[in-house]
């Protein structure tokens, strides 16, 4: 099962780097989804490791929360795009100065 957890760690890292480097709000959001998915993989792998279905239940709840999060997040991105005409995370800086 170690290889599954290592793959999960690699995917999580890629998601992290994506959140930090990409500027398009949608791609940043996709990278957050990638991180959530990587965690789910670790949960399911540990469920098999321990012969216990609690990990799968947790992965299921993570999916539900991710669905709700995507709905709200995309609505926020839409609202920002409507007022600022841009989907770049750098342009939403009204409170900066």
């Amino acid at each position, binding site marked *: 099962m170690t290889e599954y957890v290592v793959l999960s760690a690699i995917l999580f890292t890629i998601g992290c780097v994506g959140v930090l*480097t990409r500027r398009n709000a949608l791609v940043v959001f996709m990278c957050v989804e990638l991180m959530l998915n990587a965690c789910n993989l670790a949960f399911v792998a540990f469920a*098999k490791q321990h012969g216990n279905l609690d990990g799968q239940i947790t*992965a299921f709840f993570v999916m539900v929360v991710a669905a709700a999060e995507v709905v709200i997040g995309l609505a926020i991105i839409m609202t920002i795009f409507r007022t600022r005409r841009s989907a770049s995370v750098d342009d939403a800086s009204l409170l900066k100065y």
Partner: protein
Amino acid sequence: MTFWILAPLMVLAALGILFVRKAVHAALLLAVVMISLAFLYAVMDAPFLFAVQIIVYTGAILMLFLFVMMLIGVDASDSTVETIRGQRAMATVLGLLFGTVLVVGVSQVTLGTVVGLDEANSGGNVPAIANILFSRYVFAFEATSALLITAVLGAMVLAHRERLTPKATQASLAAQRIRDFGDHGKHPGPLPSPGVYARHNAVDTPALLPDGTAAESSVSRVLAARGTVRSAPALADDIDLVTAQIGDPAKAPDTSGKAGAPANTEEDVTK
């Protein structure tokens, strides 16, 4: 076996998300990662999560991403301007460090023998999950229902926009059209449809005016901006190609006289 095929594919697709310029390509690469994850769930005795992953993640969430992408513009690619200097390089270095530490740390852990889910799944995976979900985790399950309703309300509130101007009625639109005609002579009728009098009735072909010039208002502005509008001379090449393939109808009026005659008149109209 499945793992060693899918894992490199997933890592490559995930790395692609970091490097592709267009958000649509990133979404498609994310779909690759998610579907591969679904297969890994199936391998790890989680058929329920396999179905949920495909239905919820690739079916619902990614489609939502693509919808929003369509609304805010597909070609909104990433800007390369750094607001904080050196932030990208620093993030990459930090990410590499974090990844190395995580992978080295995790791979040194000995997890022991795999217990496997054969016993837990003995009555089927879905009934087993239902048993736990509706007994031990029933309050968490109820809480998710509240979460989902809150999310729906939040999305509605965020997407709602107050109407600032009164809605234009048909009468006011008609009055506005006539007013435009009176003020700056703008044609009050509908725009000409593409392909009229041309040899081709596709939307990318401008309508031809009686004097043979192209009517620019007959093709969509989007197509004109992309530069995919076809010109009348380019269409004439097509005609030459087609006549070469079927044999020139004008030279053989006995076999295809009906097809030949309109072609000739159209030729006259365009020239």
